């Protein structure tokens, strides 16, 4: 649903300034982070807290700064993280105005002096920087992301040529971080019916797979004015993908196949 203003209980208030550096602090040593905070166990509205990170004592990535804050300043700050090298997709969040992974974003890449960090846009917030991904995962389940065959299972393996395998490059690398889907206005307004770029890229990954024997059935399940055709080629998805993938191209490929078989 289109929302031009935040609901009353989501309006952001000014938060706490945790550890302002001394007036005579070494210039450039302390980096300012403004972090979205929300605790569902209180009746308080979300707020933006300000933390100062000692760059001489902290790693170069934004995730390093968040961990530094959590370990040294405020242990209540909540966020997801796991691999710290861009393969798990846990630490996706909105940093400096862009959806990306905190672990692969260098603090120096941020344009502003203060780095603003918010959860992924237009998702329900569980706490602080942790969005509720339930619907996103259900949508992934809906496209049945596994090999579907009817032929008798071969004794050793389902074979695939090198050329066919290459068709999956740029598709299999998706880590389901949801940076693309939550950057898409169509997904913001119609996320209950539109599958969004991440899930459509995943759907295309199985449509493209030469071993899969249910291509037509997969396309049938996608052919819908909302599930697929709510994509208006805005291309925020491709711009946002921290893995450098192109979900918009996958969506275009699905649409081409729909036309081809019509």
């Amino acid at each position, binding site marked *: *649903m289109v929302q031009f203003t935040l609901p009353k209980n989501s309006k952001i208030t000014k938060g706490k300034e945790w550890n302002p550096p001394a007036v005579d602090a070494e210039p450039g040593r302390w980096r300012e982070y403004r972090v979205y905070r929300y605790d569902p166990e209180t009746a308080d509205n979300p707020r933006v807290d300000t933390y100062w990170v000692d760059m001489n004592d902290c790693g170069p990535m934004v995730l390093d700064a968040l961990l530094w804050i959590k370990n040294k300043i405020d242990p209540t700050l909540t966020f997801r993280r796991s691999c710290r090298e861009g393969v798990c997709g846990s630490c996706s969040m909105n940093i400096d105005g862009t959806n990306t992974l905190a672990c692969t974003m260098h603090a120096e890449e941020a344009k502003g002096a203060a780095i603003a960090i918010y959860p992924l846009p237009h998702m329900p917030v569980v706490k602080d920087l942790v969005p509720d991904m339930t*619907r996103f995962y*259900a949508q992934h389940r*809906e496209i049945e992301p596994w090999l579907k065959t009817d032929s008798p299972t071969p004794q050793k393996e389902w074979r695939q040529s090198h050329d066919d395998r290459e068709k999956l490059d740029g598709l299999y690398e998706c880590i389901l971080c949801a940076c693309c889907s939550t950057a898409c206005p169509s997904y913001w*307004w119609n996320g209950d019916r539109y599958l969004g770029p991440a899930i459509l890229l995943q759907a295309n990954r199985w449509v493209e797979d030469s071993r899969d024997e249910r291509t037509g059935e997969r396309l*049938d399940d*996608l*052919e819908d*004015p909302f599930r697929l*055709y709510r994509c208006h080629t805005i291309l925020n998805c491709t711009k946002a993908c921290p893995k450098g993938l192109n979900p918009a191209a996958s969506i275009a490929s699905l649409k081409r196949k729909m036309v081809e078989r019509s």
Partner: protein
Amino acid sequence: MATPLKRVRGLGAAHHGTETFWRQRLTAVANVPLVIFLIWFVVRNAGASYNDVKACLASPVVAVLMLALIWSGAIHMRIGLREIIEDYLHNKLCKTASLMLATFFAALVGIASTLAIVKISFGG
């Protein structure tokens, strides 16, 4: 209490949409030369008298191209309006009423413009 999967599946896939997608692209492609033609027509007839413009519009080539532009434009507009309404209006009553009005509006523009061109073509 419905599960997330139940909510995501909703009423299932509609199994259509490709025809609309193709029609939208087709009319978009058609509109490019047709709109260039319209601009050319307007520039060429800027400052011309009423009778001269009428005579120009009555020529078969111009009339056919104008009719093509009107229908291609009306169909494209109908698809676009529907997309916008579906994107932004989620109240069922409001959405259904707007979709009906958008269809009527596009049809009215198409029919009225067609009538005007046909009338001029036949010397009306």
